[in-house]
């Protein structure tokens, strides 16, 4: 089974480790591919990152993808327009406005930690239906739990459990990522799958969140980047 971690930050954005360190650790832990989620600054930076990623991918021998994480609604609109330039579009959840905007945008692949810095879960049945309709995956971010403790950790776990229940009920895809900003914050896929079983998924569903769902996101992204693609379900045949 191939495992993917589609939300890792490198030193290009808020991360502390270099692309190489992260790629090597991911390979050591048994991931088939990772996606660097960076913050958008300029279009030139995309080209620079692409070249760097291609070099490291060949050097380390692991699939590496480029993603951008939108931090606000304005950035999300801009990145949605540039969607064909990179592999994965993530939306940094936490604010209700952005959570809603992300679930309503079909170009978005992943809504990251919808419950970030909130007392509630930041996700409800309305957003779950929208996420299902637009095929936006809801992320379970391991780093959020890792970096919290005691009361805040228990609140985050409670909110995550609710989000998992809603996503399951309404058929929204679920994905689990490490959200690491350092190579030492990455986790073994077996550990991540086991963590998901604590949130109300069975082991098979948990493994799908780490393999099948990211694979389908990457497959769709590849289709989207081909010249024949027009919009979801519509492409040039001849």
């Amino acid at each position: 089974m191939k495992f993917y971690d589609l939300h890792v930050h490198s030193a290009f954005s808020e991360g502390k480790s270099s692309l190489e360190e992260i790629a090597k650790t991911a390979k050591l832990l048994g991931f088939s591919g990772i996606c660097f989620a960076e913050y958008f600054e300029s279009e030139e930076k995309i080209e620079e990152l692409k070249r760097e990623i291609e070099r490291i991918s060949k050097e380390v021998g692991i699939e590496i993808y480029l993603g951008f994480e939108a931090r606000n609604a304005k950035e999300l609109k801009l990145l949605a327009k540039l969607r064909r330039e990179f592999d994965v579009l993530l939306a940094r959840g936490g604010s209700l406005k952005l959570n809603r905007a992300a679930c309503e945008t079909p170009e978005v692949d992943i809504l990251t930690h919808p419950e970030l810095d909130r007392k509630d879960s930041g996700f409800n049945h309305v957003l779950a239906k929208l996420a299902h309709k637009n095929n936006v995956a809801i992320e379970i971010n391991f780093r959020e739990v890792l970096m919290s403790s005691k009361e805040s950790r228990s609140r985050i776990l409670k909110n995550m459990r609710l989000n998992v229940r809603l996503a399951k009920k309404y058929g929204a895809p679920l994905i689990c990522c490490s959200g690491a900003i350092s190579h030492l914050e990455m986790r073994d896929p077996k550990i991540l799958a086991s963590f998901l079983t604590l949130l109300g998924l069975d082991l098979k569903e948990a493994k799908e969140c780490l393999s099948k769902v990211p694979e389908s996101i990457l497959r769709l992204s590849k289709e989207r980047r081909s010249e024949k693609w027009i919009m979801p379900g519509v492409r040039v045949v001849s």
Partner: protein
Amino acid sequence: MDNAGSKGGLMRLKILPSSLRERRRYIKLKIISDEPIAFSDFKAAVTNVFLDFYGELGFSELSLTFINNSFDPKRQVCILRCNHKSVQKVLAALGFIQRLGDVRILIKILGVSGTLKKLKKFK
């Protein structure tokens, strides 16, 4: 008295029949760190993290044991034992171990098995 009737040492209980024994699972893991670490430090860190995460009652339900002579200091590989129902719980909580003192560590799960013999194939 507990040792009444024994020859020198404490009297040991008769081993439970296999049908009444707890079903065990062995977890082989590798500790990745910049500096070599002591097994006693690792044991203390695991116990602390597990007690924090699951509490005393939850920790007791895991039946977690460290296989002492399994630690390979050169490769930093060791084996934990738990009952068959709590494998996922043990694996999940291992993810919350970040550091031993000042040394930051990463845990790679090499394999899970029902017997120590079968665990040898995971390297």
